[in-house]
């Protein structure tokens, strides 16, 4: 037993050593026109050594560590929380309190924090959208960012060429993204899991490459800039009104101009959009279509025998998910004021998928938590930005090892028969 573990530890640390040497130990630097290979500094080698010995020791004593962790009493969450009946009563109050905090909070903190919160809300929207497709309907979609791009470009182009307002474009963006989802899904959803993943991956790339090369319309790699910001019933958030005769927000209310109004306004829109999306998904899960998704995930053949049209049911999940991404996309381009194909690369799809998997597939609370973790952690750990992907991978490995069902595993609302 000990010997087997010793070999295991040697093997693991050996692999670890080779990988770290390749990723950290050797670096390529440009010197003039030539590339120069450089080894790591002595301090870095020390750190690598410490890391490798850690891997070795943890593998060698894996059994003991697991036993130790198992012996540590787990906090009994259910005992800390109030009883079932009380919880149901407290829930609306808690939600209301949370909403109030969300609405009041931006007025007390810095502009940067509010901006980061807005970005987080965009990822929450994307995560919730993909959660419908992956978590609820069980369809692996690796090109989700395509619908995000469709939504973003819909608003950007409509605003650029036709001067349409954000509010008019928001449903249009969602609708167009849904249409793309429908058109892609129709031929593709007959495919099973892995094939579907590959086709959606390809679709994501097609959209990006199309945006990159259709220079006459989309501006190609240089993107579209100067996208109009949303307005509040026609009141703009700029220092001076763009058009003659229009009033700006601060003039209307007779207050001094401050750029943070705009940031807070965008944040509040994002909060409203997220609340809307959460409400819709909550209803969907309790509707016949939500039950059909679950049933289809469990046993497709039984569904077919009961007269359920599986293509339409999958398509509905795909379309609704895509429209959520369209929402997020339109809001994203309005917030940035500038978009380019660079924002819609595959890594974005991967991050959104990671949010869904980390959060717990199908679980709304989990996805929201994971979205917060995934956007705020990189901001907090700026000095490690070079190792961002490495940490990201490590997080995934650790999660899959100890909590494969996600941060907050899904609990489906069961329909009860009242007698």
């Amino acid at each position: 037993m000990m010997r087997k573990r010793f070999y295991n530890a040697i093997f693991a640390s050996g692999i670890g050593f080779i990988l770290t040497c390749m990723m950290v130990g050797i670096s390529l630097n440009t010197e003039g026109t030539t590339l120069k290979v450089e080894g790591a500094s002595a301090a870095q080698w020390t750190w690598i050594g410490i890391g490798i010995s850690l891997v070795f020791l943890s593998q060698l004593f894996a059994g003991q560590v697991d036993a130790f962790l198992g012996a540590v009493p787990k906090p009994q969450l259910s005992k800390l929380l109030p009883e079932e009946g009380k919880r149901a009563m407290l829930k609306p109050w808690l939600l209301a309190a949370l909403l109030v905090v969300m609405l009041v909070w931006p007025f007390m903190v810095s502009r940067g924090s509010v901006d980061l919160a807005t970005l987080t809300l965009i990822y929450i929207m994307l995560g919730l959208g993909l959660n419908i497709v992956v978590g609820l309907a069980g369809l692996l979609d690796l090109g989700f960012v395509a619908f995000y791009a469709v939504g973003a470009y819909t608003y950007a182009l409509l605003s650029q060429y036709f001067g349409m307002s954000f509010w008019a474009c928001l449903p249009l963006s969602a609708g167009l993204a849904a249409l793309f989802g429908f058109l892609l899904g129709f031929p593709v959803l007959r495919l099973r899991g892995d094939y579907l993943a590959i086709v959606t991956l390809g679709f994501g790339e097609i959209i990006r490459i199309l945006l990159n090369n259709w220079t006459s319309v989309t501006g190609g790699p240089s993107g579209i800039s100067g996208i109009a910001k949303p307005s509040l019933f026609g009141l703009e958030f700029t220092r001076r009104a763009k058009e003659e005769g229009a009033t700006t927000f601060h003039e209307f209310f007779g207050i001094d101009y401050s750029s943070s109004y705009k940031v807070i306004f965008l944040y509040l829109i994002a909060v409203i959009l997220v609340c809307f999306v959460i409400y819709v998904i909550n209803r969907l899960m309790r509707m016949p279509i939500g039950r059909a998704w679950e049933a289809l995930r469990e046993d497709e053949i039984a569904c077919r025998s009961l007269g359920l049209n599986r293509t339409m049911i999958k398509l509905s999940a795909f379309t609704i998910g895509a429209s959520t991404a369209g929402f997020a996309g339109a809001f994203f381009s309005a917030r940035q004021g500038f978009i380019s194909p660079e924002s819609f690369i595959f890594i974005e799809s991967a991050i959104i998928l990671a949010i869904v998997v980390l959060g717990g597939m199908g679980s709304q609370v989990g996805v929201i938590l994971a979205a917060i973790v995934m956007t705020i952690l990189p901001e907090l750990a700026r000095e490690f930005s070079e190792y961002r992907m490495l940490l990201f991978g490590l997080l995934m490995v650790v999660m899959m090892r100890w909590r494969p069902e996600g941060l907050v595993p899904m609990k489906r609302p069961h329909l009860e028969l009242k007698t």
Partner: protein
Amino acid sequence: MSLLLDVNGLTMRFGGLVAVDHVDLAVKHRQVVSIIGPNGAGKTTVFNCLSGFYIPTDGSVVFNGEQVAGMKDFQISRKGLVRTFQHVRLFSKMTVIENMLVAQHRHLKTDLISGLFKTAAYRRQEQEAMDRAVYWLREMDLLEFANREAGNLAYGQQRRLEIARCMVTQPELLLLDEPAAGLNPNETKELDELIVRLRDEHEISVLLIEHDMKLVMGISDHIYVIAQGAPLANGTPDEVKNNPDVIKAYLGEE
């Protein structure tokens, strides 16, 4: 009286293998008809062809005066021809009542708007679906388990739930694929009574694949025998029982 199901020359080929070879079947209204035959005779393949899981290579399947061969599985089941499976196929993570509701999917208002705003029509339909589900659970003696996970039921109960789930779709013809497999003698007797009740009280027809000869001979109005994909004999239970070809196929030659 016209035929409910009229199958003529049904043939299914997989490459060079002829799994079903010119099989004819006829089921009248309110009849229990059985298909028997040795293992691997192609009985389940016949079911797969009838229910649209396979598109038959040749032959016609007329259900209620309408050609259904070549239709999609879900379309056929919506016409009122619903099947069960040899191995129980429940949505085992869902509750019993939810299983019953999923089966009624096509009878429900499924559009987004009415569901999002819980319109009166939506709520009424949900209530009706619930009532129908409760009715059939009571018929099948499963009402007390309504809020249990389907996967946690005993095997006999799962079998009954599968039939209940079919019945709630309001079929005219029920295709049961070895419903007595794995049941104890007591449960088999209950199944026997249940099938008779479905025919006599609920006025539906049943097409049955079964190996339990006591069950088959007791309840069938007509029996078809299939061996190696081809029809061997058919007739009333007594005729089939005394047919020398059937005895040969089951017991081998002397």
